[in-house]
């Protein structure tokens, strides 16, 4: 599908000083982030840190108040990039009153696939999500795990160059989780870029790079190994806590002042 002319060395995602504010609350405070083509970036942070807000900026649901967000070499509203962008939102976001196949066909058509392509790609995506025989079933009758997998299948349907997945493995059993990560790895080797949000730390180990988000700030980036080494800890979880402590000691005075202002 992708017709994006992104030069080989160019990053697939380029965020520069992005600011997002809702009312008086600053949710993203000058966030900068780059993701290389074919890399898997894990966006790590507790709930409420601004992960979903950042994701919404990347997929073009919202536009930042300040700064620049570039996806596949294009700024919002992503006239061309949308065709090469796959998105799996945090909630299932499926039409429950139609079948899985009808969901796939609908979103396929939204991405401009024709009938024949939809048939082929649906079969491929269902297989990837271990839902081969469930196409004709109403989504309302699916279990939570099945819904998550179908949601992922929809995101993968049009073979996007960039996949933004918001908590993709929530509610999946370990076996399916491993299968999914293997699939992600295969797709990444073929050049697909991933941005995956998670709050499960051991899953983040599978990522090429990690960006740690806290209170709307990126407090650390690097490979899992680098982050652990920098903080002289043994696990990513400990590393995250260590970065958080450092960040708090530096920034806390100002954010307390902000809270008072608000």
């Amino acid at each position, binding site marked *: 599908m992708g017709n994006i002319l992104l030069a080989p060395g160019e990053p697939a995602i380029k965020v520069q000083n992005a600011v997002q504010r809702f009312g008086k609350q600053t949710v993203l405070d000058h966030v900068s982030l780059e993701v290389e083509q074919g890399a898997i970036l894990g966006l790590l942070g507790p709930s409420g840190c601004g992960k979903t807000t950042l994701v919404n900026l990347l997929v073009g649901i919202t*536009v930042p108040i300040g700064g620049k967000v570039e996806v596949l070499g294009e700024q919002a509203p992503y006239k061309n990039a*949308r065709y090469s962008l796959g998105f799996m939102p945090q909630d299932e976001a499926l039409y429950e*009153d139609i079948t899985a196949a009808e969901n796939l066909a609908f979103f396929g058509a939204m991405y401009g696939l024709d009938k024949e392509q939809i048939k082929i790609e649906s079969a491929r995506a269902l297989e990837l999500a271990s839902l081969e025989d469930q196409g004709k079933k109403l989504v309302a009758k699916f279990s939570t795990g099945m819904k998550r997998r179908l949601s992922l299948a929809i995101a993968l349907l049009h073979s996007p160059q960039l996949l933004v997945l918001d908590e993709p493995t929530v509610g999946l059993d370990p076996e399916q989780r491993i299968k999914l990560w293997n699939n992600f790895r295969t797709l990444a080797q073929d050049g697909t870029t991933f941005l995956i949000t998670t709050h499960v730390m051991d899953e983040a180990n599978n990522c090429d790079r990690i960006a740690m988000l806290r209170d709307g700030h990126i407090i650390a980036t690097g490979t899992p190994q680098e982050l652990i080494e920098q903080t002289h800890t043994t696990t990513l979880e400990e590393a995250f806590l260590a970065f958080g402590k450092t960040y708090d000691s530096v920034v806390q005075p100002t954010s307390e002042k902000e809270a008072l202002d608000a």
Partner: protein
Amino acid sequence: MRKVFAIARRILSQFRHDHRTLALLFLAPTFVLWLFSVLLGTGAYIPRLATVDLPADFQTVLEAQDVMLENVSKARATELLEANEVDAVLYFEDESELTIWVEGSDASKTAACLAQTQAAMVELQKDAVSELESSVNDVSVDIPDQVMTSLPVEVREALSAAMTAPDFAELMPIRNLDITYLHGSDDWTRFDFFGPVFIGIFLFVFVFLTSGMSLVTERSGGTMERFLTTPIKPWQVVGGYSLGFGLLALMQSVSILWAIISLIGFPNEGSLVLVVLVVVSMALVSLTLGLLVSGLAKSSFQVIQLMILFVVPQILLSGIFDLSQAPTWLRAIASCFPIYYGADALRDVMLRGAGFTDIAINLTVLWGFIVAFFALATISFRKKRARLASRTEY
């Protein structure tokens, strides 16, 4: 266009899988219209009268009218009237003055009492006039010619003047009434007049509800966000929804019309194609308005509230109540509402057999509303990307 079709197809398959909603969509309006036809189809109200010592001949003509009579004493009549078991009491205060003592709380019942009593009085007067005529004729034949010629001229003249029958045509210019109908007939009931308006209103409300809920459920289900990340243009979204719900509304219109004309037996003087055209145009106005409102509403409860705001005033001013003598400002408001034009056109076609050119203006106005609401819905959808942000938790 393929994306527009894909959205429409998805909407239709959502309804196809949901049998209960689908059934309600068709059964509910038909059932309600049937109920209305029964309620309003009973014809004119038959007043209940109590009579107290009326002259026998008046009592007789009264009995021939469409009334329920009860001949009772004055005291009993008072009781009945106070208990609201009769609508009026008829009695004579003095020799020649008839008193109609009405219950009076329901103006339409009062009017019915008066109408029936007056009809009886007309009958009575008709009888009196013909009696008078024949008695005068009886008088005039009795004098033989020989007697007449023998009389002095003055007496003859006076006599002939006295014996000339009065000109009854001049004295009573109207002695009979014949009603002919430009449209309809005397067996049309009140429902026949309100029917076209009700068809319009019900379709409007039902289509508004289905389309109004659509975007709200998409938003609460999270599919809207996903929808907005796909390369789709706002007009394609609104177009797809209009097409999908439009087809649904077309089926709904046809089924309602079929039920009302063949099952309920509503008269249709005009062409059925024209009726369908008007009804579908109204449904499309409602549909686009629903989509517009759906963009404004944050929850399905708000859709209902907005429906009360947007639709109920339209219903009140749609032609259920006659507006031809209402204040100018009220008529000005009514003429801003699409249902008014649709109901007016439906009445013209179904009751008066109007052709396409007669309702061309109404149709133009309706399509003007459709285009305007479509454009506004598209614009509001364009802005929705930004508005979604306020809902998203982070």
